[in-house]
């Protein structure tokens, strides 16, 4: 079975991984996905958020054991991370500098010529800046320190173990994601894209070709940060870049990619947006660097999934092919997202994507609101779908796992509800900003106090959550869907029943209210 590896490099890489994780939760990912992150800035807010998210995803995935039908795609992807560490932080110690890394002081004594070369290539600041908060927009530093990853420690140990166990060419699909304009991503993507690092590394060699099919996504500038004199003054004298530096860094990087012949990418995606939308306050690194999600991260995530899905090119196929996707106007809606490069599958794939993301949105909203409400009710006030055949109670004489009151079952539902809230927040951020992104209607999801809208006060909010033509069916229509769901296996765990009922009803509601449908040839 083909292995899929997603490697996120730097802050942007972490944010794209966040988007991929949410897409997997919605059921749009591959069956299995291995991933890890590369970032020296362990305290980076984006990185921590993604790390926590993947942990939460795996907790949910582990607890959702039985699906009622093929329609339930929820959390179908098994995401695995290297057991010892899912982040390669590059440096062992906290106060690493480029000077320390290349033993600059020793070089001055033992090989003064090399030390002079280092002095020519790097400024004093670059040699002495502490790198535990990233490369501060200086990829030349990153390119040096990322060139020798340890094969005996995770995540690389697990990665190379997986690669060497594969017995077919191109059977490990590796996708690198990072920004072209920052520090870590801009250094890491070309470094790991070079021939000897991954694709034609001796561990990946297979007869005359490679076990690795290598892809990458380079994210061009797409956001701005809110800068004020205070925040800039706070970091005066430090090494950092701001969004004003992105265009020139991008131009230089693109020229590099155009001229560099040592790169071994089989497929490369470039994703960007010319409207630099503000995503948060300026911070050069560490915890403060935590930005709002952006639709470009969703598009980049789609590029990774397209790469994993598309057939590998034949070894002797050296023709270059170019695919271009762009939005028609200023708005970004369901129809503008480049879900696949394959023209024939485009319509079907868009329908599938729209249904899965919409179903996940409805599922998340209903589970986080109505789902909690039902669990808090007294038994006699609960709706028919809950009381059916005493599904969730002990009275049926079934084992405890069929009892919704069992802590384990309640915990599973609570975990899903918490994940659902995170998903909705992410979707809202993607759709927020200057309101160009028309996928979900944030104002119908959240009230002024930042809480999810109350179905009793706004029973029709659910009908407008998704930006699509709607029959304006109220929340009660969703409950009616729940009452009509038939569970194939009534012996499944109570938490599984609960989640299956909510998800199947969400799909049913999307079909009924928004007129969406599962494409006939849907095979995913």
């Amino acid at each position: 079975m083909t292995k899929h590896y997603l490697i996120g490099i730097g802050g942007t890489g972490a944010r794209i991984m966040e988007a991929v994780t949410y897409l997997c939760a919605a059921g749009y990912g591959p069956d299995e996905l291995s991933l890890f992150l590369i970032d020296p800035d362990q305290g980076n807010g984006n990185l921590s958020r993604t790390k926590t998210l993947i942990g939460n995803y795996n907790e949910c995935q582990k607890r959702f054991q039985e699906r009622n039908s093929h329609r339930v795609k929820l959390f179908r992807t098994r995401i695995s991370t290297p057991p010892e560490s899912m982040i390669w932080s590059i440096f062992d110690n906290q106060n690493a500098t480029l000077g320390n890394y290349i033993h600059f002081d020793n070089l001055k004594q033992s090989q003064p010529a090399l030390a002079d070369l280092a002095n020519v290539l790097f400024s004093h600041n670059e040699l002495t800046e502490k790198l535990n908060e990233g490369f501060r927009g200086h990829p030349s530093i990153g390119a040096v320190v990322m060139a020798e990853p340890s094969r005996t420690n995770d995540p690389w140990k697990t990665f190379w173990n997986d690669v060497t166990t594969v017995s077919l060419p191109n059977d490990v699909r590796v996708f690198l994601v990072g920004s072209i304009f920052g520090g870590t991503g801009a250094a890491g993507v070309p470094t790991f894209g070079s021939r000897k690092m991954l694709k034609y590394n001796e561990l990946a060699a297979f007869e005359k070709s490679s076990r690795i099919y290598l892809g990458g996504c380079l994210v061009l500038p797409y956001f701005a940060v809110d800068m004020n004199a205070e925040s800039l003054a706070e970091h005066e004298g430090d090494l950092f870049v701001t969004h004003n530096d992105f265009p020139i860094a991008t131009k230089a990087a693109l020229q590099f990619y155009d001229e560099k012949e040592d790169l071994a990418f089989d497929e490369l995606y470039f994703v960007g947006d010319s409207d630099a939308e503000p995503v948060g306050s300026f911070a050069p690194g560490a915890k403060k660097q935590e930005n709002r999600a952006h639709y470009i991260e969703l598009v980049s995530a789609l590029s990774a999934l397209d790469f994993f899905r598309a057939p590998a090119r034949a070894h002797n196929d050296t023709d270059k092919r170019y695919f271009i996707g762009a939005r028609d106007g200023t708005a970004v809606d369901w129809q503008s997202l480049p879900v696949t490069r394959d023209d024939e599958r485009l319509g079907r794939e868009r329908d599938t994507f729209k249904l899965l993301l919409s179903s996940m949105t409805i599922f998340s909203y209903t589970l986080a609101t109505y789902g909690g409400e039902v669990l808090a009710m007294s038994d006699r006030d609960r709706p028919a779908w809950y009381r059916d055949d005493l599904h969730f109670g002990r009275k049926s004489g079934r084992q405890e796992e069929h009892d919704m009151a069992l802590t384990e079952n309640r915990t599973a539902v609570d975990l899903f509800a918490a994940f659902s809230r995170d998903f909705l927040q992410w979707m809202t951020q993607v759709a927020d900003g200057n309101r160009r992104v028309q996928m979900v209607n944030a104002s119908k999801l959240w009230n002024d106090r930042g809480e999810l809208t109350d179905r009793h006060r706004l029973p029709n909010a659910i009908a407008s959550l998704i930006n699509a033509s709607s029959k304006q069916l109220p929340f009660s229509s969703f409950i009616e869907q729940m009452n009509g769901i038939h569970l194939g296996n009534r012996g499944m765990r109570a938490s599984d029943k609960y989640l299956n009922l909510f998800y199947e009803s969400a799909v049913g509601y999307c079909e009924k209210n928004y007129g969406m449908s599962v494409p006939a040839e849907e095979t995913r």
Partner: protein
Amino acid sequence: MRKRPMNYLITLAIAAVSWFGTAILLGNYLGDSVALENATTDTFIQVYRAILIAVAVLGLVNCCYWYFYGAKETTGGNVPAARRVWRLSMAAQVAIAATAVIALVLAFSDEQFTSVEYLLVFGAASAHTYIFFWICTLFMSPRPVEYVPLGRG
């Protein structure tokens, strides 16, 4: 059985059978057994059947309203409100049955009935009102209010 028009049709059929049993068969029996001093047996049977027609129609209307209300999309999301409606309907049906007996007593105020005869008339009215309503809603309530009737879980 819980879906329309099935529940409406079965309820109508039960009401018809029940009316035949109470108004025709029980009516004939009462006509033969009651000791009337002033009124004729035919008048008694006519009034008795007219009262049973009225209570049967009210029982039927209440059942149909419950089916209509229970099948409404908004009902499933508010089970406590549905329970209130069911209980109120039940209480109304008991009151209708009692009113039926009182109506018969008033119509024949100068006659003397035995307590068994009162009980039989109340039983007949009950069969068309709260008992009828309870049995029909117990087995034929729409899905959203399936568990609302007394004795259903």
